[in-house]
C-alpha cells in the first residue's frame, strides 16, 4: 500500500491488535508486587468534615495503608490551573479555585474523595470502606445556578464573597442600538443540562517508582500525558526526565481524561514512593459518573433582533455557566459557547455575557463539543423562533443570514479558548446547507410527504441547522520522524490517542512524504519517553496540529534523504526521488539505495562527521497555528414522533461537513458518526440529573441512558464540502466534535415541526419522552 495513501480510506494499522484482544489497556498491566488503590468518597455534596477515623481499616488483613488529607502535610495543596485565566479579555473577572487532591475540612461535591486506601487487592481496599468512620456536618447545597448568586446563598468557597467564579462580557457592534431598529425582538430563556463523557473505559493510573534508579514510570489513560508528567514531576521536586508517562491503548476520551489534577494523579505518585511498591487505581463506573468531570449545564437569557425580512441585526445572550465545585480548567467551556453562538451567520451586533458559577456538583471541564453545542443550540433555536414569528421557512431564514464563501478570513471580534480573537479561516456555509437540504429531500418532504402524512394522522417532522466547530487550536505540537535501519519509519508525537485512528492517519501523512508502505510506519503517541513536548488531545486538534508537525518532520527527513541520496547515487538532488521504501534515481529505479541502508549511512562513522550536520534519517518539527481552523457543517433530520408515548425515532439524517482536506475519508466519517450518536444521546437520552441536595440521580447506566444501536437513525447520509484551511500546509481542520454539536438543536426543531399542531416551542435540552409529554401538555393548556 505504498504510493498515494494520503486521502485514501486506508484500514487502520491498530485494528488487528484491538480486535484480537492483544492491545494493552491500562487495567491489563500487572506488575510484580503491585498494590491496589480505592477512594472512599463523600455521599454528601456539601458538608464540613468533623473527623475521619481509619484505625479499624488499618487492622484489616491485606490493607497496607490508609491516608486522609492530614497525612499529606504540605504536599496537600490545590492543583494547577490547567488553562490560563481569561486576562486577554478586557474587564474579565476570574477566581481560580482549583481541584484539591482530597477533601480537607469540607467537601464540595458528592463523590469528592475523603480517604485513600491501599491494599493487596481492589476487593480488600473496598472492603475497608466499611471500616472507616467519617463524621460530617451537612451544609445546604448550592445547585440551582440563579439561586447560587442570590445574596445569602450558601458559599461553595467561603473565602469568596459569592459563588461567582467568573464574569466575562464580549461585544461586537452595539446590540442595543440594533434592537431599537429591529422589527422584531424575540427573547427566550433556554436551558441546557449536563451530560457525561462516558468513555467505555473508565480512568486509570498505575505508578511504579524505582527507588534505585530514582525514576518513576506512570501508565495513565490520559489525554494530556505531557502536562500530567510535568505536574507530577513539579510536585515531587523531580526532573521531568525522571518521570515517564506512558499512555497504553485508551478506551475513549471525550474530554474528561484531560484532567491532570484528580486525586489519583496527585496522590498515587507520592504514595508509591512512600511504600516503594507499584500502585494501580482503576476508576469504576460509579466513580466515573460521580467524580470525574462532566459538562453542559447552562442557563441562557437570549434574544434576537430581526427585520421583517428575516435579516438578523443582532443577538444578545446573558448566560450562567455551571463550573461545579472547582474551576481547574478555567473558562474553556463558556468561552467556546461565546465563540460558537453566532459563528455561522452575519450578525453585526452581538453581545455575550457569561456568569460562571460555583455549585456543589461535579467539576465541569470539556466533554466532546465543549461549550459549542450550547452556543449552537441557543442560536439555532433563536433563529427558529424568529422564523416562526415571521412565518418564514427555517431554511430560508438561515440562507439569508449565512456568512458567504467570499468573506474569509473573517475576524469575529470574540476571543475564544485560545485567548486570541477568533478568525473564521475558510469554509462555504451556504454550500453545506444546500447539500444537506438536498440530501434529506427537504422540499419534497415539506411539499409532498408531510401533508400526506399529516392527513394520515402521522407526526413526522423535519429539522435543518448549521454549525461551526472551532478546531486545531494551539499552542503547538511536535513530532519526531525517524527512518530505522530496518527501512521502516517511526513517528512519535506527544499527544495521546483514544481511538481516533492516529496510528493510521499519522502513518499516512509520513508514508506519503517518505514513499513507504503505510503498514511500515510505526506511530507512538503519548509516551514521554519517546517525545516529551506538547499539549494534549483536545479541541479536535490531533490531525490538524500534531498531524502538521508530523508532516513537517517527515518533509525534513525527506530533504535529508534526498541530499544524502544525491551524494551516494552521484546524481543532482532534483533527480532523486523516494518511492517503495527506496531512494532512487528519477526515471531509473534500478539505481537505488534502500531507506534502511540510507539510515545506517546517515549515522556518521569516525572521520566522516561534517560540522553542523545532524545524524540520522531523523528530524523533529513543531507546529503551532496562529489561531484555530474552523470546521463547519449543516445537519438535517426527519423524525417520527409517537404522540401516545412521546417516543421519537430519527428516521433519516443527513450531515454535510467541511474539515478541509480529508486524510482518511473513512475515519472522518467514523468521527462524524460517533459524534452524532453522542449528539443524539444529548438530545433525547442522556442526562446527569442532580437533585436540590446535590445528589446525582443518574449514576449508573441503568439511569443514565447511552444511545443503543436501535436508537440510531434508520438511515444516515454523509456529505463533504472540502475547503482546505490556509493555516497548515495540508489544509486540514478537525472533525472530532462535529457530530455532537448541532444534534440537539436539529432534534428540537424537527420535533416541533412534527408536533406543529400543538404550538410547541422547545427551549431546553436534553429532552426525554416524559419531558416532551410535559412540554406538549403545557403548550396545549396555554
Amino acid at each position, binding site marked *: 500500500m505504498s504510493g498515494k495513501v494520503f486521502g485514501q480510506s486506508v484500514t487502520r494499522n491498530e485494528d488487528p491488535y484491538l480486535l*484480537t484482544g492483544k492491545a494493552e489497556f491500562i487495567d491489563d498491566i500487572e506488575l510484580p508486587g503491585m498494590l491496589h488503590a480505592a477512594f472512599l468518597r463523600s455521599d454528601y455534596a456539601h458538608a464540613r468534615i468533623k473527623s475521619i477515623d481509619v484505625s479499624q481499616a488499618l487492622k484489616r488483613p491485606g490493607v497496607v495503608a490508609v491516608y486522609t488529607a492530614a497525612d499529606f502535610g504540605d504536599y496537600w495543596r490545590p492543583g494547577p490551573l490547567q488553562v490560563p485565566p481569561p486576562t486577554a479579555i478586557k474587564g474579565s473577572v476570574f477566581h481560580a479555585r482549583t481541584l484539591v487532591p482530597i477533601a480537607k475540612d469540607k467537601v464540595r461535591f458528592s463523590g469528592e474523595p475523603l480517604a485513600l486506601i491501599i491494599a493487596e487487592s481492589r476487593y480488600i481496599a473496598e472492603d475497608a470502606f466499611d471500616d472507616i468512620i467519617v463524621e460530617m456536618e451537612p451544609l445546604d447545597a448550592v445547585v440551582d445556578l440563579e439561586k447560587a448568586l442570590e445574596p445569602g446563598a450558601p458559599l461553595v468557597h467561603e473565602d469568596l464573597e459569592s459563588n461567582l467564579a467568573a464574569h466575562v462580557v464580549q461585544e461586537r457592534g452595539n446590540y442595543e442600538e440594533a434592537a431599537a431598529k429591529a422589527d422584531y425582538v424575540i427573547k427566550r430563556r433556554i436551558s441546557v443540562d449536563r451530560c457525561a463523557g462516558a468513555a467505555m473505559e473508565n480512568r486509570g493510573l498505575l505508578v511504579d517508582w524505582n527507588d534505585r534508579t530514582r525514576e518513576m514510570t506512570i501508565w495513565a489513560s490520559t489525554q494530556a500525558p505531557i502536562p500530567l508528567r510535568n505536574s507530577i514531576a513539579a510536585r515531587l521536586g523531580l526532573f521531568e526526565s525522571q518521570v515517564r508517562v506512558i499512555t497504553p491503548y485508551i*478506551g475513549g476520551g471525550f474530554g474528561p481524561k484531560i484532567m491532570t489534577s484528580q486525586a489519583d494523579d496527585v496522590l498515587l505518585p507520592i504514595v508509591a514512593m512512600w511504600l516503594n511498591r507499584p500502585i494501580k487505581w482503576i476508576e469504576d*463506573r460509579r466513580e466515573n459518573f460521580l467524580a470525574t468531570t462532566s459538562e453542559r449545564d447552562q442557563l441562557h437569557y437570549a434574544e434576537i433582533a430581526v427585520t421583517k425580512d428575516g435579516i438578523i441585526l443582532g443577538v444578545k445572550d446573558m448566560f450562567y455557566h455551571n463550573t461545579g465545585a472547582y474551576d481547574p480548567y478555567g473558562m474553556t467551556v463558556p468561552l467556546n459557547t461565546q465563540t460558537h453562538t453566532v459563528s455561522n451567520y452575519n450578525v453585526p451586533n452581538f453581545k455575550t455575557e457569561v456568569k460562571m458559577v460555583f455549585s456543589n456538583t461535579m467539576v465541569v471541564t470539556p466533554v466532546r463539543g465543549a461549550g459549542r453545542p450550547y452556543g449552537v443550540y441557543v442560536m439555532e433555536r433563536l433563529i427558529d423562533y424568529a422564523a416562526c414569528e415571521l412565518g418564514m421557512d427555517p431554511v430560508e431564514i438561515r440562507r439569508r443570514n449565512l456568512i458567504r464563501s467570499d468573506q474569509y478570513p473573517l475576524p469575529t471580534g470574540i476571543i475564544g479558548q485560545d485567548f486570541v480573537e477568533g478568525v473564521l479561516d475558510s469554509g462555504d456555509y451556504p454550500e453545506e446547507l444546500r447539500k444537506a437540504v438536498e440530501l434529506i429531500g427537504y422540499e419534497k418532504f415539506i411539499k409532498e410527504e408531510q401533508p400526506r402524512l399529516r392527513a394520515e394522522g402521522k407526526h413526522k417532522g423535519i429539522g435543518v441547522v448549521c454549525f461551526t466547530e472551532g478546531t486545531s487550536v494551539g499552542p503547538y505540537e511536535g513530532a519526531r520522524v525517524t527512518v530505522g535501519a530496518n527501512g521502516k519509519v517511526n513517528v512519535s508525537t506527544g499527544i495521546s490517542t483514544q481511538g481516533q485512528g492516529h496510528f493510521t492517519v499519522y502513518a499516512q501523512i509520513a508514508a506519503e512524504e517518505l514513499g513507504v508502505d503505510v503498514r511500515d510506519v510505526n506511530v507512538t503517541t503519548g509516551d514521554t519517553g519517546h517525545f516529551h513536548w506538547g499539549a494534549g488531545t483536545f479541541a479536535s486538534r490531533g490531525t490538524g496540529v500534531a498531524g502538521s508537525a508530523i508532516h513537517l518532520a517527515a518533509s525534513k527527513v525527506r530533504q535529508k534523504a534526498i541530499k544524502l541520496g544525491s551524494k551516494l547515487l552521484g546524481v543532482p538532488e532534483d533527480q532523486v526521488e523516494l518511492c517503495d521504501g527506496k531512494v532512487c534515481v528519477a526515471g531509473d529505479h534500478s539505481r537505488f539505495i534502500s531507506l534502511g541502508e540510507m539510515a545506517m549511512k546517515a549515522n556518521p562513522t569516525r572521520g566522516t562527521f561534517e560540522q553542523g550536520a545532524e545524524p540520522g534519517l531523523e528530524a523533529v518539527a513543531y507546529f503551532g497555528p496562529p489561531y484555530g481552523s474552523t470546521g463547519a457543517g449543516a445537519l438535517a433530520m426527519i423524525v417520527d414522533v409517537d404522540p401516545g408515548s412521546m417516543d421519537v425515532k430519527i428516521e433519516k439524517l443527513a450531515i454535510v461537513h467541511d474539515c478541509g482536506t480529508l486524510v482518511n475519508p473513512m475515519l472522518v466519517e467514523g468521527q462524524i458518526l460517533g459524534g452524532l450518536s453522542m449528539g443524539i444521546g444529548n438530545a433525547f437520552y442522556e442526562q446527569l440529573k442532580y437533585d436540590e441536595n446535590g445528589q446525582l440521580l443518574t449514576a449508573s447506566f441503568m439511569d443514565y441512558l447511552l444511545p*443503543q444501536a436501535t436508537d440510531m437513525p434508520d438511515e444516515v447520509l454523509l456529505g463533504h464540502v472540502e475547503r482546505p484551511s490556509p493555516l497548515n500546509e495540508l489544509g486540514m481542520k478537525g472533525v472530532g466534535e462535529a457530530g455532537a454539536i448541532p444534534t440537539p438543536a436539529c432534534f428540537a426543531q424537527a420535533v416541533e415541526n412534527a408536533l406543529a399542531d400543538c404550538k410547541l416551542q422547545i427551549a431546553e435540552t436534553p429532552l426525554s419522552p416524559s419531558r416532551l409529554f410535559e412540554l406538549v401538555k403545557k403548550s396545549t393548556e396555554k
Partner: protein
Amino acid sequence: MTKLYTIKVKVNGTEYERSVEPRLLLSDFIRHDLGLSGTHVGCEHGLCGACTVLFDGEPMRSCLIFAVQANGHEVQTVESLGTPEHMHPLQEAFSEKHALQCGFCTPGFLMTLVPFLEKHPDPTEEEIREAIDGNLCRCTGYQNMIGAVQLAAKKMAARQEV
C-alpha cells in the same frame, strides 16, 4: 481472608484449575487470574456488555457471575477468535468497515455476534441492530457495525463454500 474454592474451568480449550474466593467475579478471574485481558470491563453492573464471553457457547456478561459459578463449564473469550495475523472473518470485517474506534467495547460485540452469526447466517439490518442492542459503544454510533456484520456473513458463507 475468606475460604478459597478450587474450580476447574475450560477457557479457550485449555483446562484451568485455580483456587478462588467465592466473591471473585468471572470477569476478574479471566482478566487477572488467567491473564486473558482481551475481555474488558466497562461498568461492572451488567449494562455495557464489554465483558461478554461465551459461556457454554452462549453470550454471557462475565461481570455478572462469579468465577465459582463457572466451575465445570466452558468459557470462550475474544482470544479464541483469531490472531493479528489470522483474524476471524468477523474481525476482518470490523476492520474493513471501520466498525471500531477505541476498540474497548469491541471484544464484547464480537463475542455477542459470533453465536448470532451462527444462528443468522444472512441477517437483516434490523436483526443486527437487535442483536447488538445490549452492547454499548461510545465511539462509533454503531452504524458501521451493521455493514461489518453483513460483510462478515458474506465472508463466512464464502469460506463454507470452499
